[in-house]
């Protein structure tokens, strides 16, 4: 049987529960309480934090150019995108965020969730997902990286730093 994205996510989330084994209370304690964010359409505060942690890992402030994901609030853009998706896809993407948040616990047996890793650790963890033997982790990494890359580099504030510009449309 070939697995669909949805079935894979269901199976993987089942594995999360089995492997952690600490019950819902233990999982929640490990993740901690995310600060409240006003105005979210779909994402929970926890999901918003996870997504923000991915975005700032992929596009940190400083380095080759100053602007980073945090200044552009990419997680909120993702929230807006999700609001127009159907229930199934929205559910899949939220499950993917949950899986990523608990990834260090489940797959690497570390006592820390993704959004509590250092920036360097988050990049390294994400890279391991990209090259994982597990299809689900590769899919989650691929989907998030593609979405966040397109949104980040579609912002005109970023363009001067990478030598990009749209040509003017002749009248």
């Amino acid at each position, binding site marked *: 049987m*070939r*697995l*669909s*994205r949805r079935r894979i996510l269901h199976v993987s989330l089942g594995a999360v529960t089995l492997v952690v084994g600490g019950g819902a209370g233990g999982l929640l304690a490990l993740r901690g309480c995310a600060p409240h964010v006003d105005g979210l359409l779909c994402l929970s505060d926890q999901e918003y934090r996870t997504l923000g942690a991915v975005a700032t*890992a*992929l*596009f*940190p402030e*400083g*380095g*080759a*150019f100053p602007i980073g994901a945090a200044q552009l609030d990419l997680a909120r853009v993702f929230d807006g*995108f999700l609001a*127009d998706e159907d229930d*199934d896809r929205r559910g899949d993407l939220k499950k993917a965020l949950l899986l990523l948040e608990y990834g260090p616990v489940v797959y690497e047996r570390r006592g820390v969730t993704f959004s509590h890793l250092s*920036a*360097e650790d988050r*990049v390294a963890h*994400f*890279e391991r997902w*990209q*090259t994982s033997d597990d*299809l689900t982790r*590769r*899919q989650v990494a*691929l*989907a998030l*990286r*593609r979405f966040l*890359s*397109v*949104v*980040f*580099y*579609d912002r005109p504030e*970023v*363009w001067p*730093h*990478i*030598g*990009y510009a*749209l*040509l003017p*449309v*002749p009248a």
Partner: protein
Amino acid sequence: MTGAIVDLSEGNAPGETSVDVCVIGSGSGGATAAWELARAGRDVLVLEEGGDFRGGALTMRDGMYDQLYMERGGRSTVDMAISVMQGRVLGGGGVINACDVVPIPDGVLRCWQKKYGLSEMSPEAISPFSRRALEDLSANTPRPDQINVNNALLRAGAEALGWRGEVMLHNRQACQGLGKCLVGCPVEAKRNPRMVAIPAALEAGARFFTRARAVRIDGATAEQKTVHVRTLDARGYHETGELTVRARTVVLAANAVASAQLLLRSGIGNEHVGRHLILQPQLPVTALFDREVRSFHGIPQAYAVTEFERLDDEEHGFWGFRVEAVGGTPGIVASVLPRLGAEGKTLMRGYPHFAASLLLVPDTGNGRVTVDGRGRARIEYSMPDEQKQRYRDAVKAAARLYLAAGATRVMVPTARPVVITTEAELSAVDALGFEPATAPFISAHQQGTVRFATSPAGGGADPSGQVYGTRGVYVLDSSGFPTSASSHTMTPIITIARYLAQRLAA
């Protein structure tokens, strides 16, 4: 009588309407069929799920993928191995393609004759329709000054290696070189179905409903068919109402995925419907040069290295592989670079120095379209080892081309990136396994899901395009192609759609 374009998101759906012909899909196949059938005096209604985007509504930003492509640009195979890019806009894929005009090679038609029994589709019979398609598209060769550095580097590499290549015909006129063809042309330089066939069909009296999603066909063997339609909101995200279209003839031209999806949702057709899906996946490769390339300005795709393609393969028709230059927006390029985080940003500082190409590898019908419990398309695809080997061969060829042109490094954007700086490092490519979701494959040329065959044992539709088991339900798009028709499908679809539509009208 002049037709009209009606945007159903504005709440003006008629509830129920009757026509001679209901065409589903307004792209190269649908618009051409509508033109021919309206010209022959039929009362034609075309249903299009997307909106009508022209001129300044095409912003040249990546955000346009949301509006111009199926599933907001996120459609993929179920294992996410391949992005399936399919237009969802009035005018279809021709609005958002790279304008490459490549007719069906005679060798492909001979293959269809010999292997699939499509004896009437001879090179001689199809030739006038190919010529007509070229005229409609105003096919011409880009001027030398329109070949940007990205394309010129590929050509320089081919010339240095003594490999065959060509500047491809295109369907642009008065191109301003804005470089954003894949998200529509704001200066309307493309002579695509939106600019040619749709105005002609309107002139002949055809009507077009936009934001109209066909969800089921009833009565496929009856004199009158019923097409059930859901109207969509202005952004095309949500269904808002219903409409019923009654028609003697239904023409499916919604792309090889969506045409099969609709038949399957409707319980129409034989066991071949949805099978034999050809995706012709393309793999991007990037290369870094000391000089500025600025692949994002000018014609994105003008030059192809054709050294390794065959157009007369007895078994497949079009086979081998080709390497074509391509311009990528920064987000797309960033998503396939070999570094993340701060290192990724450092690489992107060099964005104007990146060249890029797509490795186009024709395939057999390894894929399948099915529908889930809610009627949505599921696209399955498995890549045989032989095909993977051709990708490895193509990657090596692209690397050699770029190194010959002076690249400092060539980057293969797999999950474990391969970076090549000398020919001695080409052997690293042999380790690429192309497991699902490890390489950013893209499909823009879906074909074959209701393939033409001389009997129901061999395919989903007869050589006239009529779906087996129906009376008056036709496929006039790439669904019918039994093998890949060409490296780029716009011209073949227009060609075959007109050929079959004229027969249908007769």
